[in-house]
């Protein structure tokens, strides 16, 4: 955690209530929460579970930079970004993004930008497990 932003890359389950609590504020009338959960299919294949790996120290720095950008440029008041690593089962929360702002447009816009940009540049990788083995996924080959 740095300043007002809750930022974490962690192996323990994500406490969604704590993520929401981290963006509470008296002047913030709009709160948007995005949860990314482990899905049972990808590219036409059945997925049994996921492994996530991170370059932890760099991922932490990148997440802090994203949170700062959302506050300084996108009108977010408070930001929480938490990503799981390790083995996750179907349905578990892999990533949580919460944003509060005075009004809803900035909260929606910042939340959308944060999850999109996280997926583009934060050094975290997923490996999908299928009935016949596992494969590391690259979103921008």
């Amino acid at each position: 955690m740095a300043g007002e932003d809750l930022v974490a890359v962690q192996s323990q389950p994500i406490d969604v209530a704590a993520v929401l609590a981290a963006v509470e504020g008296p002047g913030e009338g709009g709160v948007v929460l995005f949860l990314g959960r482990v899905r049972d299919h990808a590219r036409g294949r059945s997925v049994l579970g996921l492994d996530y790996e991170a370059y932890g120290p760099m991922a932490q720095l990148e997440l802090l930079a994203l949170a700062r950008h959302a506050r300084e440029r996108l009108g977010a008041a408070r930001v929480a970004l938490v990503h799981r690593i390790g083995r996750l089962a179907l349905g578990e929360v892999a990533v949580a993004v919460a944003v509060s702002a005075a009004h809803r447009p900035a909260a929606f816009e910042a939340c959308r930008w944060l999850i999109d940009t996280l997926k583009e540049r934060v050094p975290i990788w997923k490996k999908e497990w299928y009935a016949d083995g596992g494969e590391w996924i690259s979103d921008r080959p």
Partner: protein
Amino acid sequence: MRVLLFAGLAEACGQPALEVPGPEAPATVGQLEARLRASVPQLAGRPFRTAVNRRYASAAEPIAPGDEVALIPPVSGG
């Protein structure tokens, strides 16, 4: 010089870090990438970006002794 590896790159190389071959350490990110591409067959066909001291680095960026250098394959978080 040692470079950190992750995910599919670490798996392809069978280890979490690579020792950069050659008598002298590369002076820039571009030189490092060229030397690795020329000497590590496991990297063939595998895209990556280079990070220096936990920041994405451009080809012109210098590398100093003691810098933390990592190869970042295409990310897939979220």
